[in-house]
């Protein structure tokens, strides 16, 4: 491999690695958002159940 070939490969690889790193960061962020969403769904479900129980007691 000549010096030119090495530098050209390095330039294109840097861009590829940067895009890959960005995808990895976004994937991690998406996983966090998914965790947050399921946590909130659980919280909302519990709240609905609790209000249902309260209605039964009042009847």
């Amino acid at each position, binding site marked *: 491999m000549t010096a*030119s070939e090495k530098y050209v490969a390095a*330039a294109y690889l*840097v*861009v590829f690695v940067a895009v890959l790193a960005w995808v990895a960061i976004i994937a991690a962020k998406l996983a966090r958002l998914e965790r947050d969403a399921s946590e*909130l769904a659980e919280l909302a479900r519990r709240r609905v159940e609790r209000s249902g129980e309260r209605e039964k007691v009042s009847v």
Partner: protein
Amino acid sequence: MQRFRVLLRLRHIPLPMLAVSAVVLMGTALALVFFYAPIDGDQGLSQKIFYIHVPIALTAYACFAWGAAKAFLHLWKRPPGADLESYAAIHQGVIFGALTLVTGSIWARISWGHWWTWSSNQLVTFLILFLFYSAYFMLRYSVEPGPARANMCAVYALFGVVLIPVSWLSIRIANDYIHPTVFTTKGPQMSGSMFLAFCVSWAALLTLAGTMYRVELAGKRLDSKLRELRELLA
């Protein structure tokens, strides 16, 4: 006006279609760069860095300009979300700006024998532009979220856009002999096949930047909606 309408229509392209277009254009650009565009007689194989370095730099300029346009819109008409859109565009601009500096340094090392030279106006003005927009995040995260932060960030983003024509014109005004000038008043100084490869590369990088911008924006919006929901449920 017609061009602006086309830009507005581009905003409605579904995200998966935009991502697929970016991948297809990237593949086409790589094929054109390595199998269609001829090897430069002067610089040899190292000139192939041009097809990634210059489109990345132009994409960074486009992202900063888009961020400034959104900032202007925020100050003028105050549509909801313009501040977030400005932030996302500037973030993409900083990513592409960093890549411009890295790919440029690699090209400089093989062409000039140095990773960096302070005597080139084009390099220094681009570095100033990059550092200016990098400091945008320091400002944004040092102020409490709210209308005051949005206004401050919008004004800062608008100031930075002045540096784009300065960076672009610096080599033309100051007769910078170190950094090559390919686009002159006589048009692009390259063969038709080289110009085609360059245009496809630029289209690919613009589409990639557009996809990244839209994904980041969707993530940010989802994050703020979840935060709002958490506050309501708390």
